[in-house]
Structure formats: C-alpha cells, structure tokens
C-alpha cells in the first residue's frame, strides 16, 4: 500500500493543473471534489500503522473536502444562476505556465529543505498545491473561483500537515477542518450576496473603496 502514496500525490498535482486549465465552473468544482477524495485517502496510506487517529482523519477529510464543500459550492452556483465560464485576468495559457513554474519551484525548494519524513514526495506536492491555489486566487475574476483557489491553498497546507500527523493531535486537525469549512461557508454566503448585489460574480468590479 505504501507505494500507492506517490501516485496519489501525483494525481493531486494533476488535479491542481486541471483546475488551472478548466474554463467551466462546474468542471472546476468537480476537480476540487476529486482532490478532496485523494487527500482523504492519503492519511491512511502514509500513517506507519492504521491508528484510529489516521482513519478518523481520513474519513473527516473525505466528508468535508470531498463531499460537503463541493456540494455547497455547486448549490451556490445553482442559486446564483450565473454564467458558467471562467475568465482569468491573465488568460489560460499564462496561468498554465505559471502553474508549471510553481510546481518546478516547489520541487526545487523542497529539495533544499531538510526532510526527515517518511514520504519524500509529500512536501514538494504540498508546496506546489499551495502556490497553485494562490495563483488561482489572484488570477481569477469570479468570486466563486477565488473560493476554490482558497480551498486549494488550504489543501496545500493540509498536505504539509500530514507530515506531522503523529505530533498534531486529532482535536486540532478537527478544529482546522471545521475552521476551513466555516470559512468557506461564510465566503459562500458573501458570494451569494455579491451575486445578488452586482448580479455577476466578477470580483474585479469590487473597487469602490479607495483613499
């Protein structure tokens, strides 16, 4: 089972790049759901022995990131009934290139960091996911896609967290998951209000507050 982890990690990076590339909102959310599931599997694969802690963490992640968040986001899309395509500020090709650059950079940095965890691939993938999440967040116009970007960024951090599963007690993991969920939940409500107020999800129109 142990050798499956690297494959899963690669799939996670692929899902990142896919989300970067999609031009449709629904496929973007499906990508996010897929990533959620993959993340859910990882704790079980990585943990040295099948402790209750690892299993419960896996189940919690799958429920929150695999099921709840994507369902909630798709509900928001239906509610908002908004045009479904994504228009990035910098254009698709550019964001793809940026994504690739991010992955390369992640692996470069990870190689220099003093690693002592069991799974060598884990840190570079987490940094890559983190950077790609940041890119999605800063280059997309639609508020909803920005939320997706934020969740990907959170996934990156979560991945890095996996290297410390035994030191970070379960209660804290649960707190982190809960916080992420409530955060996205509130963002969703705000997105809903943005849509009602501006009858479009284009966050770049939000430039009324100036000095």
């Amino acid at each position: 089972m142990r050798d499956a982890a690297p494959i899963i990690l690669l799939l996670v990076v692929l899902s990142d790049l896919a989300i970067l590339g999609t031009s449709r909102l629904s496929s973007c959310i499906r990508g996010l759901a897929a990533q959620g599931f993959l993340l859910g599997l990882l704790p079980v694969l990585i943990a040295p022995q099948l402790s209750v802690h690892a299993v419960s963490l896996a189940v919690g992640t799958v429920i929150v990131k695999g099921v709840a968040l994507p369902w909630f986001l798709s509900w928001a899309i239906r509610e908002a009934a908004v045009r479904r395509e994504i228009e990035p500020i910098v254009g698709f090709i550019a964001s793809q290139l940026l994504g690739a650059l991010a992955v390369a950079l992640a692996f470069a940095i990870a190689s220099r960091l003093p690693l002592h965890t069991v799974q060598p691939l884990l840190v570079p993938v987490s940094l890559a996911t983190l950077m790609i999440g940041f890119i999605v967040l800063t280059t997309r116009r639609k508020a909803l896609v920005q939320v997706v970007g934020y969740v990907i960024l959170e996934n990156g951090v979560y991945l890095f967290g996996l290297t410390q599963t035994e030191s970070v007690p379960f209660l804290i993991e649960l707190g982190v998951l809960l916080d992420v969920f409530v955060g996205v939940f509130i963002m969703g409500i705000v997105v809903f209000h943005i849509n009602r107020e501006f009858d479009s999800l284009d966050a770049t129109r939000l430039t009324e507050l100036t000095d």
Partner: protein
Amino acid sequence: MTLVALGLALIVLAGLTAAALARRPAVGEMVFRILFGAGCTLGALPALAVLAGDTVPDVGLASATPFGPWVFGLDALSAVFLLAVLSVGAACAFYGLAYLAHERAHRAVGLAHLLLAVLVATLALVVVARAALPFLIAWEGMAVAAYLLVVFEHERREVRRAGGIYVVATHVGTLLLFALFAIWAGGGSDLSFAALAAHPPFSAGRGAMILVVALIAFGLKAGAVPFHFWLPEAHAAAPAHVSALMSGVVIKMGIYGLLRTIVLFGTPPPWWGWVLLALGAVSGILGVVWALAQHDLKRLLAFHSVENIGIILLGVGAGALGVTYGHPLIAVLGFAGAALHTLNHALFKSLLFLGAGSVIHATGTREIDRLGGLAPRMPWTAVTFLVGSAAIVGLPPLNGFVSEWVVYQSLLRGASAGGAVQLVGLAAVVLAFIGALALACFAKVVGVLYLGTPRHALATEPREATRAMIRPVVGLAAACVVVGLAPIAVVPAALRIGSLVAALPLQADVAAGPATAFTVGLALSLLVAWALYVAFGRGRQRRETVTWACGYPAVTPRMAYTASSFAAPLLGVFRSFSGVRTRRTPDAFSTHAIDPVLDSVLLPAWRGARAAAAWVRRVQRGGLSRYLLLVGAAVVASLLYLLVAGRNP
C-alpha cells in the same frame, strides 16, 4: 516650593470657577480675579526670594512612571521666568476678563478663562520641572492650551489655518524634545535633570547631536528665524490678551530651554556659541525688517517678538562663547543680559499687545493704514503704547535700555578681549542696527496709529477702552518705568542668574549704581524741563489753526503718510527678502507683506509632499488581486531573507 504649588493650584481653581460660573459672570469673574491674583502673588514670593539670593530646596515625588522620580525645583534661572509668567499672566488674565466681556453671548468665554489659567499654570510647571517627564507633560499641556486659545474665534478660516500651522510646529518641537531626552539619557533609567547633569563626558558626535536637537526644538518654540514661521500667524489669529501672553512668556520657554541646556550640558563647543550668535543676528535683523513691511498691527508686533528673541539670543550666544573661551565676565554679562531682556520683553511686549487689543476692540480693524489720530480719542492707551514703544526700542530711561545696556557690555567686553572671541564685537554693531530699525518701525506705528488725522471714516467712533482693560496695561507700563529707573535693584539679580548659568563666580564691577543715577537723572531733567516749558508758555499768546502744509489750502486725511510709504525707503534697501510683494492692476496698486520662510518655502514643500503621497496612494485603488500580490510579495521577501540570513547559523 510648596508656595509655588499652592499658587498654581489657586490659579487653576480660579479658572475652574470662571468656567463653572459662566452663567453668572459678575460673581464668576470677581472670584476669578481674587483667586488668580492670590495665586500669582503666592507664586511670585518664592521667586523674588530666590532672586534676592536665598535658595529653595528641590521637591521630589517618587512617581510610578518608569523613568525615575518627578523632581521640581526653583533656582535663580527658573525664578526670573516664573516671575515673568506670573506677572504677565495676571495682567493678561485680568485684561482678558474685560476684553471678552462683550462676547459672552455667543462664545464659551468661561472656557477661555479656564484655558488661560491652565496655560499660566503649565508655563509655571515647565519652569519649575526638574525631570524629563514632568517637563514634557507641562510642555505639551502648555502647547495644547495655547492652541485651544489661539483658535478661540475658529469660525474664521485664517484662524483655523494659523492654529493648524501652530499646532504642527509645537508638536514637531515636542517630538524633537523626545529625541533630545532620549539621546541625552542614553541607557540610564533616571531622567531627572540632576542625573542628566551628572552625565559622563559625551563623545563629540553625541554632544553635537544633543546641542543641534536642543537648538532646533527650543528655537522652534522661541520663534528664531527660520523656525519663526508659525509665530506671526498664531499671534494675529489669537485674541489680543492671548497673543500678549504667548508673545510675552510662552515663546520665552524656548529661551529657558536653551539656558537650561547650557546649565546641564556644561561647557558647550565653540561652534554652538557662534551658531547662537548668528541665529540671534539673523532673527534680529530679519524680524525687524519683516515687521517694517507689515500693515497688520498684530503681525507687526509678532515679528517684533522675533526681533527681540534675536536680541536675547545674541546675549545667550555671547554668554556661551564666554564660557567656551574662558572669559567669565563676558559669560556672566551675556546670560544676565539675556535673562533681563527676557523679563523686560515679557513686560513691554505684553503691554504693546494689550494696547493693540484695545485699539482693535475700539476700531474693529487691525489694518493700521485705515486708522490714525487715535491719541485724542484714546489717551490712556496712547500713552501706555508710547511707553511700550520707547521701551522696546531700548530708549533710556526705560527697561529695554537697561537690558540692552547689559547685553552691549557683554558684546563690547568680547570685542576688547583677545583671541577669536573678538568677532563678538560685530554683534554689537548688529544690535545697534536692529535698535535703529526698531526705532523706525515703532515711530511708524505710533505715528500712523495715534498721531496725525484719522485716515478713514470708521464705522463706530473709537472710544477709550474700559477702566478694567486700562488698569493692567497701566500696571505693565509702570513696571517698565520702575525697572528702567532701578537698574541697581534689577542688575545684581540678573548677574546672579548669569553666574548660575555660566557656572562661574559672581562678577561685581558692573556699574549698576551710576547707571541708576543716569536714568533717574535723565527722567528728572525731562520732567523739570517740561515743567519749565509749560510755565514759560503760560503767559504767551497761542493760536489754533490748520496744519501749515506749505500753504496747501486744506490738509485732507488722504495726504497723511501711510505706514507702507513711511517704511518704503528703508525696505527698498532690503529689496526681495523684505517680504514685500506689490500687486499692480490697471486701476489699483497695493502692497502686501508675506512671510518669506512660510509662504515661499514651507507651504510649497508641504503641497509637494502631499502630491507625491497622493500619487503613491493610487496603489490602494487596486482590486483584490493586487492586495493578494502584496501579501505574496511579503512571503517571497521573507523567503529571500531566509536564504540570505539562513546561511550563518
């Protein structure tokens, strides 16, 4: 010291009662008068005692603030300033009661009296504070109280503007004082003046930094050129009795600061004395030249404060040089002259401002070109203003002459002493030049304002000020005459201050006795001659007619010389930097005077800075992505730092 504390408490109490009983002014102001008067006399007694020679022990309060105990003390240097504060404070407060009486209907007059009481109290506290924290707290309290008084008539735009400039200038000064005490105390945790004085010898750089910061901070408060820019604005905007108090005493805190710095610092390096001297000369000359160019009565008097601060700085500079080059007589005389001129200036400048207040109160305008011939209508104000003018120009037998005579002695002894200090002699020439220009300016003011014929028909016929306004003014004039006629009483006290500041033994051979004989003799001979002239003229035949203007049929008011034409030949010599700007339009010609430092240097610089800031602010207009990129930049920067700093463990 307990007497001083009690006095200050009474003063603040007086202010509170005036504010509390605002609805019943008669009672309120009467109680204010009693309490304030009692407070001032109680405070003045120890000051006079210290000036007469005995010493008052320091009082220490173990405070709970971090930097050491709060200490208060009274030595000769503080005593003369305390005396000035209390005497001028009382005169201005009593004058203020009457001056603001008619505005009770639509302004918070009670509050103004409270603020004035707070101002006088904080001024006294500044002078008796012997530790950094109480000094700074009293200093800022004084600045804020003065600001709130300056913007008393804040419905007018230029008053708000002047207030704004003033509050900025004082706050910058306070920040500099923060730096001064921080540099001076170094690592030490006790910030009392005694601890500061017992400092280890400073390194050249640190000593220089302390003196430069002290010079700018206290120069800003004193109003020496080029730090004077706020002074004419604030004094023109403030009510007359507040300008009198500010010009008479508040700006003197800058001088007190400089003198206290010398006491605590020890022997200053040579360059400091020369800078002070140069600052004094520049302030003196430019102050009086800009005053000549003014038409606004209060701005004119404000610029004269800059000139007199210049004269005081000449004394302080000569004193500092005397200490540096080891000439005890020059040092003691320099500081003594400076201290005495500070007290005298407090007296006659507040007298002039209060007189100006009465004129403005009666005529409703500050433009001297629109006034004229006020002497017959306002005799008392005219006489007291004349005494004040003669005193400020330094004419014998009044007090201005006495203090300038001491400063001259210091400068002339400097000239006759050997070595580099001889250059001080040039300062004596500068002082003479300042005196002559001051004479020109005050001849203009008195001549244009009080003598001759009224130049414009005023809305209301100007009437003499009320008795309540005249009493303090006459009191101040009397003080000027008494100090002028009694150098034998005043000069020894000034010498005691001089020897304290210069930390040198008291020099005795200053001819105070014969000087008294001279002034008293001159005054007597003037009176006797006037009596003879009146007796001689009684029996003679007198006729009244029109002024003989070389046969012109009717002398119209428009023929009388105006202030600007009077000063034109003199200002012609100084050309551009006299601040006179002429405005020629096809059908009108007018001159107006600007303050070169403020209007052509500081304000443009500030507008430039604001424009630059506005350009930078465009960043905030960006959308969310630009904000996130900033956060990203911060992460990248810290990562780079990690790589750089991470190498060495």
